[in-house]
């Protein structure tokens, strides 16, 4: 072992170079967002590691899926068939309602877009940065995922895609402090913006006038105003509405509808404008672009 370092620049010089480099990276990434386009290559670089780390968990869950008794499978199958029957019956009515809605909208000469394309994705439950609320999903640019894509689950809006790799992406959750989403109150169409608070389970609704018609328990749905999220998906319920006498704005907090920390499968939506007027009818299940798992 060499006791004295003979080669290379001194530690202090190396440290200053590296600190300068890191500071440039920090500023370029956080303030100027210079890595938005190269993130896809950088994320693809580390995605093998992420798949390796996720593999044991995946193996375990497939094993536990396989190790089921016949009775349990039968029971589950029956339950699912029942659910399916109810959903199909609801859908019959929905087609009817949709046609009616279309006719009414034609009478009013107003158009409304419906998103058609969607894709199921699985959450890779790896550790993420402790200061941001994000999830890693196992679909990437190769599957057509794009930056800012809306992500929902069966309960409501989850968030949007914030980083894309070739086979993995990151979803920024609606509770993250840097996330905002335009909403309207389902009951009376009052519009507002919901901001993340940085804590699971709490959202802030700033700039609501203190005389606004808003009550606890009101459902907030996406308004579609930002152009990023399609309209009509549930986001949160108002959990507290409080105002001080004479204050301009009320203090409103809300709770997300979707269980953000417990969802395993998510749904990616394509909110393209090319689907705007293409068809307003519901597509039959066979032609949907849904990839299992």
């Amino acid at each position, binding site marked *: *072992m060499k006791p004295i370092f003979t080669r290379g620049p001194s*530690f202090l010089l190396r440290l200053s170079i*590296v600190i300068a*480099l*890191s500071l440039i990276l*920090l500023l370029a990434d956080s303030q100027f967002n210079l890595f938005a386009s190269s993130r896809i290559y950088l994320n693809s670089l580390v995605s093998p590691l992420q798949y390796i*780390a996720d593999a044991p968990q995946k193996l375990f869950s497939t094993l536990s899926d396989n190790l089921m008794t016949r009775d349990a499978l039968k029971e589950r199958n029956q339950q699912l068939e029942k659910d399916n029957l109810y959903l199909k019956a609801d859908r019959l009515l929905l087609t009817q309602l949709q046609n009616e809605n279309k006719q009414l909208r034609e009478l009013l000469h107003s158009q409304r877009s419906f998103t058609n394309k969607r894709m199921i994705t699985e959450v890779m*439950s790896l550790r993420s940065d402790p200061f941001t609320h994000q999830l890693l999903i196992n679909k990437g640019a190769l599957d057509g995922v794009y930056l800012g894509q809306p992500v929902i689950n069966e309960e409501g809006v989850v968030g949007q895609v914030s*980083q894309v790799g070739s086979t993995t992406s990151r979803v920024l959750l609606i509770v993250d*402090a840097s996330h905002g989403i335009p909403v309207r109150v389902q009951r009376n169409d009052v519009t507002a913006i919901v901001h993340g608070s940085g804590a699971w389970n709490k959202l802030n609704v700033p700039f609501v006038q203190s005389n606004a018609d808003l009550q606890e328990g009101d459902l907030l749905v996406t308004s579609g105003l930002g152009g990023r999220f399609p309209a009509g998906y549930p986001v949160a319920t108002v959990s507290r509405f409080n105002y001080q006498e004479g204050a301009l704005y009320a203090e409103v907090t809300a709770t997300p509808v979707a269980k953000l920390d417990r969802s395993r499968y998510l749904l990616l939506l394509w909110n393209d404008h090319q689907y705007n007027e293409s068809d307003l009818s519901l597509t039959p299940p066979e032609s949907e672009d849904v990839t299992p798992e």
Partner: protein
Amino acid sequence: MSLLSSYRVIYLTFFIGLICAIFPLPIILNAFRPDWMILLLFYWVLALPHRVSIGHAFVLGLLLDLLLGSTLGMHALLFSVLAYLVSINYQRIRYFTLVQTTLLAGGFILLAKLVLYWIASSLQDIVLHSHYFWSIFTSMLIWPWFFLFLRFIRIRFKVA
């Protein structure tokens, strides 16, 4: 042993360390996850400061930034500063007892957590949870065994 094969052993430990750093754990245990990368870097810089130093720390920090999805450069900056602190004092630290190095490791991790929090809070609004600091204690609990294990590996595979 040749240079190539000693680097092979070092990089293998880094690879496993990176996987351990992101490995999925139940939510209750997640806060107690030891800071494997800091412990690994601490050991290798202490043992072989002419092999693993600031450059390696920087690259590993960048990889961890990418894996965790944090702002690029956060961990890179931190790891290189820690590697610098260890590599200018390695001769002194080598004479420490295991208890003293454990306390030092705890101090390093506390410093690292504070710096990470400071960088993150200057970039965006964040909420600090108290369990953010719990991993210091698990890291300190694990350090003596981890140290002895890595020394066994280093001697067994004659990494120099």
